């Protein structure tokens, strides 16, 4: 099959996707070792965990560590197969093929990260099936091509098992192609270091923020859908660093971000007043 003429647009400028500076990432368990092994064995990886616990940051770090470009696709319920694989575009009254992000990653041996995979439509998710077993091929239907993945290509995806309805769940046939790494919020000691590093706020105050976060996490299911994430803590810490009163910063950085419900908000304010 000769498709050379069609691929004028497909060689990406790899450097766009390369992460040059080391992202700050503090391992919370053995996720780095698992990921490295999976990478060595060409097994795709599924990152599970609540929002803001460092999944995206982890991927950036691993991409930097292995010096492989990272292509991130945020999935949404309108994402079609063509959006991933590629499509014909019209140029001067003729058609040219444009690789989608997944195809680009497969061709160039990048790490492809599908964020919030459950949001994607089910018919979209199945295109990754042949890529994720030992065949490692991507069928490009419209080109009539079977694209063999470059050896460095690696597929990862993330999802948050917390608040999906039964309707939006991964098919077993999709799930079982992946090694899963479970992300949880880091333990107190680690989390305080992260918040401290990211925001520059003195450690003693970070400890309080982390304690507050753990209090909100205890309330999950009792008025809250999710507890405060590490990300929220970092944001709040940055506010405090800029000179806001901890009380005020927590109220807009944590309480108001977590809930709209007045009663729950009162309770969150009480928690904040307990700590600060």
């Amino acid at each position: 099959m000769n498709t050379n003429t069609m691929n004028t647009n497909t060689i990406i400028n790899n450097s766009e996707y390369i992460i040059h500076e080391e992202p700050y990432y503090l391992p919370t368990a053995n996720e780095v070792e698992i990921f490295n092994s999976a990478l060595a064995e060409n097994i795709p990886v599924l990152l599970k965990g609540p929002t803001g616990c460092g999944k995206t940051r982890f991927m950036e770090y691993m991409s930097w560590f292995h010096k492989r470009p990272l292509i991130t696709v945020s999935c949404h319920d309108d994402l079609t197969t063509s959006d991933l694989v590629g499509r014909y575009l019209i140029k001067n009254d003729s058609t040219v093929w444009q690789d989608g992000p997944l195809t680009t990653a497969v061709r160039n041996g990048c790490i492809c990260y599908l964020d919030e995979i459950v949001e994607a439509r089910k018919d979209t998710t199945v295109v990754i099936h042949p890529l994720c077993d030992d065949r490692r091929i991507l069928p490009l239907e419209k080109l009539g091509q079977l694209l063999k993945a470059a050896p460095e290509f690696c597929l990862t995806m993330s999802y948050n098992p917390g608040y999906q309805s039964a309707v939006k769940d991964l098919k077993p046939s999709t799930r079982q192609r992946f090694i899963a790494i479970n992300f949880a919020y880091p333990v107190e000691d680690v989390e305080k270091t992260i918040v401290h590093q990211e925001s520059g706020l003195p450690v003693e105050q970070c400890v309080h923020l982390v304690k507050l976060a753990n209090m909100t996490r205890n309330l999950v299911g009792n008025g809250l859908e999710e507890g405060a994430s590490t990300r929220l803590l970092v944001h709040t810490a940055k506010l405090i660093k800029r000179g806001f009163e901890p009380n005020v910063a927590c109220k807009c950085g944590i309480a108001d971000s977590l809930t709209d419900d007045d009663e729950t908000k009162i309770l969150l304010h009480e928690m904040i007043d307990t700590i600060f």
Partner: protein
Amino acid sequence: MKFIIDWFKKQVKPAQKVIRPSLLESKQTGSCGGMSTTELKIRIELILDGVKTKDSIMGSVTQLAGLSHSLQTQFLDQLSELSELSMSHAYSVMLVYTPSIKIMDSKEHSQWIEQIILSISSNQLDEANSLIKNYSQFNLQINRSTTSFSDVADVLEKLIFSITRQELALMSIDLSANQRPYTNGKSIFLPESISVFDNYQDNYLLYKVMTFQLLGQIQLQTNSALKDIEEGVTEYGDHFLDIFSTIETLRINHYLKKKFPGIWKNILSIHEKLTIETYPEHIFSDHAETSVFDSLSWIKQFGIKQRILDSLPYQSDFSPEKLSKHTVDSGSVQASPIMMNIDKKSSEITEDDDNNQTAERIYFKHNSNSEPSGSTNQPDTDIWQNLADNIEHHQAEQKSLRDEQKQNSYLYPEWDISLKQYRNNWCRVEEISTEHDIDESQITDDIELKFFEKRIRKSLDLIINDQKLIRNQADGDDIDIDAWVAASSNKTKHADDFQNIYIRNNKNSRSVAILFAVDISGSTAGWKNKIIKQSTWLLSRTLANLDDQYAIYAFSGAGRDHCHIYPVKKFDENYNYDIKQRIFSLKPQQYTRMGAAIRHLGKTLKQSDAKTKILFVLTDGKPDDIDSYRGDYGIEDTRRAFNEVKALHITPFVLTFDKEAMDYLPYMLGKKHFRLISDITMLPIQISTIYKQLTT
């Protein structure tokens, strides 16, 4: 010691006048996103149903539009509640609503509304009128200087839970007995009301500090020295207890200062308001973990002086009698005495020498019978963890206690046609979980059902596929690039090719939640029950393959106090064999109080986030219950209930199996909302039309 005593001597407790901060500020935060005047006006008109002329409400509507969305919703809720009692009062409340909310805090305001409702329903209309008219005086009438337990219990309980993950119940104690707050490790006992300060907020803070003192007592395991305290009391009497209580309170304060700086601030502000002298902080070292034995050795060290100390306002009851109530087994936890950072000067005052101190320490340690073999010197670095382990098994106990109280029951109103009025809180609906006790034989006869299942699925598939992206359309939301490309790359160009190059996207219309309400009343016994079960199973089986959310609940009952709802499959459960068993083990029960069931299930369904919500009732159609819920009364209430559900944007639909039902179903539901099926074989044919009609 001397400075502590000095410090205590200076305690006085005048109730100080503190200016109440304006609560309006907190009300107006987040005021964005409220309803517009038009929307408000329409909603109000709907509720007030054309009372008075249209122009007269415009003024208040404009005012209301300035409130936050949550206040507006609260207003609409209260207005409709009032309007059910009296239109004219609802109207007058609306006129003064905005000014009233500006001068009262939210608690006062809801009390005000409550009082109005109370007066109207007890027919004291003049009283209600005057309440509305004199809204500006209302907050002066209620006694604000007392904060009662019931106001604070809920928040404090949740707060404690968020810290410990343990359900420590909060209970009130009788003030008249002059008791101090205490805990038994499972519950925290607080005074029924506090009026130390003349304002709610400060009294509340006192409650909060008391609660945290007791939490500290649990976490620091004061009760592990029970024996020593008992001995001390026997030997030296109440003096000992007084001194011990104060020292221990200070130790807990010290712990709170480290763990909960916010609470520490509260403590300091209480001290300041009651002009309690500066806190002698340095008696406990800032870094070391302390134990109750440190407090004891403190007392030992300085002897039991004759002075009686005044107690702190938030001090709890440390008497052995109360401490012994602790059910938490603290014997397993190591209490580890650590040298306190005792002020050099004060130790010079005492005659005790170093050796003596050590001896005493050992004495206490020995008595504490909490010394595990080996690691005696290891301090408890994680008291929280210890506590968590300790109380774990009590949590389950607490929980079951709670469950018993709540019992999953809900109250609903009922429409009385003869009174032309709702009877409030008339029906008690209980959710009862189902157990299946079914023998396999009853399920095996479903080979015929298999066939129907296939046919239903086929006809449903048609609808579903219908609803996704439709390509090659003459018109649509988006250009179908593929069609365009195909058309352009055609060697032999037809003009037609370029006609159908649009995509129509129907995807978003498919967001459907269906709740099946299955009538299992006694009147369905026999073939009706069978067909109901078969239909339910067929429908759920086929729906399990669609993207739609669905739930199944059965209902029956006897009398207004026993309306029973049996959840078979909730929205968040996936379909599985268990559910099939539950469906087939549904047995005819007692009666049908349809209205209550519909109201309850409507509420359940309302929580779904789907765009289309369908309440699908399978019944023999007859509302019928003891206590004269039959005939017109039953039909009218059911009709009313269906209308209420419709107002929640839920589509009701009744599938019935009884020809007689056709007499009143049209009246109860309106056209198109019901279907009669007399034979299961009809279901596959009917279902696709029904389904299409409902979801598109």
